[in-house]
């Protein structure tokens, strides 16, 4: 290892910027998962397949129908929102209503079944060919000595914008308030006239839409193919654990953190080890702080 590289501030800040772009994607993917988990307690393992559907929507709208890429992202969000609501209504709600003692574990296994079904249906319908878009935006800009492509900058900006909209939605709208109330105490929310089942359905739809947006946005990095969702789902699970399960701001912070850590480990170790480092990091956090890095929750152990 060349010590000059370690201490060169330009290289270090370039890696930092790369890491933040990477991290903004992770944060976006982790947000939806964290939202669903925080409200319903459901660990959605088919989140990666929602992501995969988002990449396909983006491809169809932006390439086959030749529309601007923002339209593709919008289409991915709308389609996945509806799809997510349908999944919740037809599958998750059935399981929740029966509400056995450990239905959450059953729901986890159910989403694994969904993952298998969706991956293989996609394989049958679309085939295994990778369909990608080389670049959403051309060109690059220089910030001081550091150069960044407009592509990456766009990803960063859209991700930030989506997160702000999500935050404002949960904070200020009636539905957002209902979601927060249900998250705090479903029984009390129901007593106050909130249709809890509908809130669950909306939330699942929103979570799926966030995965779809992430998929559409990242099509230049993850082209559309049936098993594309695997890497993203692992990263988003890692982000959600690091940030604390169900803690959406924590997921955003953890996403950025993980992105930066991975960018540095990609630079300083051989490629491939960043996955081991992520896994070890997650294991350590689960051992020492099961509630996540940014959570102050004490009391009952998970």
């Amino acid at each position, binding site marked *: 290892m060349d010590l000059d590289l370690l201490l060169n501030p330009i290289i270090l800040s370039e890696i930092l910027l790369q890491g933040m772009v990477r991290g903004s994607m992770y944060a976006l993917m982790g947000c939806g998962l964290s939202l669903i988990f925080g409200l319903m307690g459901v660990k959605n393992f088919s989140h990666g397949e929602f992501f995969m559907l988002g990449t396909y929507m983006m491809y169809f709208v932006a390439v086959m129908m030749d529309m601007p890429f923002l339209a593709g992202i919008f289409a991915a969000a709308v389609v996945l929102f509806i799809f997510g609501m349908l999944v919740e209504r037809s599958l998750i709600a059935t399981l929740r209503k029966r509400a056995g003692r450990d239905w959450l*574990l059953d729901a*986890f*296994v*159910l989403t694994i079944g969904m993952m298998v079904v969706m991956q293989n249906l996609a394989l049958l319908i679309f085939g295994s060919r990778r369909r990608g878009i080389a670049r959403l935006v051309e060109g690059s800009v220089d910030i001081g000595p550091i150069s960044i492509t407009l592509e990456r900058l766009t990803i960063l900006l859209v991700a930030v914008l989506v997160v702000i909209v999500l935050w404002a939605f949960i904070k200020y709208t009636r539905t957002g308030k209902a979601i927060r109330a249900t998250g705090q105490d479903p029984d009390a929310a129901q007593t106050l006239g909130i249709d809890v089942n509908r809130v669950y359905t909306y939330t699942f739809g929103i979570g799926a839409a966030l995965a779809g947006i992430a998929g559409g946005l990242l099509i230049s990095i993850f082209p559309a193919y049936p098993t594309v969702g695997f890497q993203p789902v692992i990263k988003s699970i890692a982000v959600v654990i690091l940030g604390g399960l169900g803690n959406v701001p924590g997921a955003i912070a953890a996403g950025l953190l993980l992105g930066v850590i991975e960018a540095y480990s990609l630079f300083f170790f051989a490629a491939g080890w960043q996955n081991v480092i992520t896994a070890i990091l997650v294991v350590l956090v*689960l051992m020492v702080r099961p509630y996540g890095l940014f959570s102050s929750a004490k009391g009952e152990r998970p």
Partner: protein
Amino acid sequence: MSAVAYPEKPAFLREVTFWRVVKVLILLGFLIFVPFYSDSRFITTVFISAVMFGVFAAIYDLMIGYGGLINFGYAGFIAAGAYTSALAWFHFGISPWIGMFLGGVMCAVLGFLLGVISLRLRGLYLALMTFFVGEAIRFSIANTPEYTRGMLGLSVAPLPDLFGISFARGELLNYYYLLLVMGAAIMIFMTVLVRSKFGLAFKAMREDQLATESLGISTTRYKLYNFTIASFLTGILAGFYAHYLGILSPTPEEFGVPKTVQILTITYVGGRGTLWGSLFSGFLLIGFQEYFRALGAWRLVMFGALLIFVMLYARRGLAGLKKYVW
């Protein structure tokens, strides 16, 4: 009414009724003679897969069905066992017969460590912890090609001859009967285990951790027992898997999530907490998968749909059908 006091039979003998003996003999006859008389390599291969994954699924059941411990990195443990035996032969020339045992020991150590680091975790948190541990094992194998040949694939020797029985690559029937013996030993061991006080403690731990603790049973200790024993059995069978297969590579399909999902599906379809249900569903699902090869990806769609159906409407799996069929 005679007052003759019949001597009390031991518990395990009381369960031995005539019909049960007949049923077991029929099943054993099926397992022993069908591949022998069919004389078809295809049938033998399918039987090997079915029994192997059935027993893997039964071991999985020991964790999830009895202890309530979900191991979502199970394929990583199979990888650890398989690679230990293969590498022991590859680098040190250790006989695979000892290697299989070493694989079991390696897995037991890993299982014990996994138990230690996840002592405080339950349910979903445990699933996530085990998932990342399994992936870390797999990625570590993939990232050290100088020892394991990584993604290039490691070719593994067939088992050496034992007592004059040849285990050359083509001797499928010999591999099958070896697997039957190993599988039977593992299944009988687990059956005895779950009927002992260990089994009771496992079930109590699954039902209610707090209540179990309050009865003076250390759930921590039994969790460690469960993981260690299940991992040891996994490692031994994984050693067989390595030498039977002949080539190992740490791809996701071989040792990642798809493999774990396959085994988990067999366990859930067979019925959790039954041990033997997994063997039946192993035959059902693997047989189905092999017979309908022409359907391609549709088979996996049906696999997933079956898992969803079991979760929604048939939580006991095949075991729920037992009273109608058998």
